[in-house]
């Protein structure tokens, strides 16, 4: 429990710091909402002229898009600091984290708050609410509970992928997290029904980097459609596996860390 308390305090300190710069806060929130809106502008423009995309209705596609967006939007709020890992390694600033009695990976994750995540969450939340009104889901208590578990798992998967991909900075020395950025963009694929992709791309988003489990797959389970629904129940398993993998990768990389020297 101590870890959680420290984590929240660390985030709190940064929230206060960011709120000192109010224009930054609003720019970030607006950027977040704008980013979420982009996909809907695209989908809206397209669905004005077609009825279905590979058998998926507008409401269903928005549900997939919003679910993936919501899972992703939490990452900047709780783990934005991990994007600075490459820079910390490059500058030797990781030293500070190593001398404190608290897991370095958590310190790095909570060393920054991305308020764009607030805008993302609001934007994706509104979309998800809209989509749920426009799709056919046979709601039961069980479905609500499992749905909640899948959502949390989806968030864990996104955080884990972000941590793991940024941990590559221990090997690829660059102050900018290019590798992680590239991986992040792969996630864009999972915001649409993956049935439109060829085998290789499906393999990438389901197996190699399981972004599909943070959007399309749980949505497919919820809608009981697309032939991937059964995979949805594996989402928590994937989440636990990737959380473990990300943790191991960070620590494996940490052993390679050598300070910048003075």
């Amino acid at each position, binding site marked *: 429990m101590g870890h959680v308390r420290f984590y929240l305090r660390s985030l709190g300190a940064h929230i206060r710091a960011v709120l000192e710069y109010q224009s930054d806060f609003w720019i970030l929130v*607006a950027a977040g909402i704008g980013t979420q809106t982009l996909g809907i502008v695209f989908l809206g423009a397209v669905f004005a*002229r077609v009825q279905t995309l590979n058998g998926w209705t507008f409401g269903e596609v928005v549900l997939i898009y919003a679910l993936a967006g919501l899972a992703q939007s939490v990452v900047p709020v709780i783990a934005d600091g991990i994007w600075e890992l490459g820079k910390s390694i490059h500058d030797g600033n990781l030293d500070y984290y190593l001398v404190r009695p608290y897991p370095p990976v958590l310190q790095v994750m909570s060393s920054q708050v991305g308020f*764009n995540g607030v805008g993302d969450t609001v934007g994706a939340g509104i979309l998800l609410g809209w989509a749920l009104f426009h799709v056919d889901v046979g709601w039961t208590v069980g479905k609500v509970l499992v749905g909640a578990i899948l959502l949390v798992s989806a968030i864990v998967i996104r955080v884990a992928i972000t941590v793991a991909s940024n941990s590559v900075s221990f090997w690829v020395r660059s102050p900018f997290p290019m590798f992680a950025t590239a991986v992040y963009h792969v996630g864009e694929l999972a915001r649409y029904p993956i049935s439109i992709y060829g085998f290789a791309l499906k393999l990438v988003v389901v197996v190699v980097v399981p972004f599909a489990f943070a959007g399309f797959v749980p949505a497919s389970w919820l809608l009981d459609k697309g032939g991937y629904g059964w995979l949805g129940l594996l989402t928590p398993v994937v989440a636990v596996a990737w959380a473990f993998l990300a943790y191991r990768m960070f620590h494996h990389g940490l052993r390679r860390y050598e300070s910048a020297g003075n």
Partner: protein
Amino acid sequence: MRVRAYARVLRASAKTIFAYRVSFLFGSVGAIFQLLAMVALWTALLRNRDELAGFSLTDMKSYLLVGYATGVLGTGFGEQWMAERIRSGAVSLDLVKPLNYQKARFAESLGGLPMEVALVVVVGTVFTSFAGPVMTPAYHLLFLISLLAVVPIKFMILYVSTLICFWTQNYHGVSWARNVIVAVFSGALVPLVFLPQWVNVLATALPFASITSTPALIFIGRISEAEAARLVGLQLMWVVLLWYIGQFAWRRSVRHLTVHGG
């Protein structure tokens, strides 16, 4: 004339980007995945119909490929460096150099071109071989000029938006917000004809359509040669206008410079 000085800046930047080529390549993966996602989406959309808003699948693939190319060219190597130097106050060292700040940054941006062109050629070749068939440009010369004009226009838009860092502390928000606006109004997200009338009206008054829409429409020959020539003229007007806007914005921004300690 200090052409030689700027040529040196250009060479230094080209060397830097070559030294960081692994990062550069990782950084380019994102756009490639977006291209793949979009091709898959449009292929699914156009599977059972000949055209959407007058775009056949071949048109759309060509449009997306040109959109990819204009997204890569002049990506503004140095955008992040510039933002970081303004934020930290290190920009003060640039101020004492006897070079025009904007020209020096433009030279840096041009230094990225060799790698960018190489990337576009490789991706374009692979794309046409696998995602096949794309057309050849309808009006060769006009297409070439419009593609070249993209480089300074994109630079100036990046440059002016990065100057906002003199006011805000957080560069990412500015960068994301700008990307949203550019994606919608440039036609990179979806051809402008798919978007509502008011977006189109607004787009004619903004420089962003010059980045993607103009070269892409010229490439696929969707517009007459006279119209193509008019749009290229408009691009050249934006090059000149944005250059002076940049100079003006710099003079205003630099007064806001904050340098911490020493």
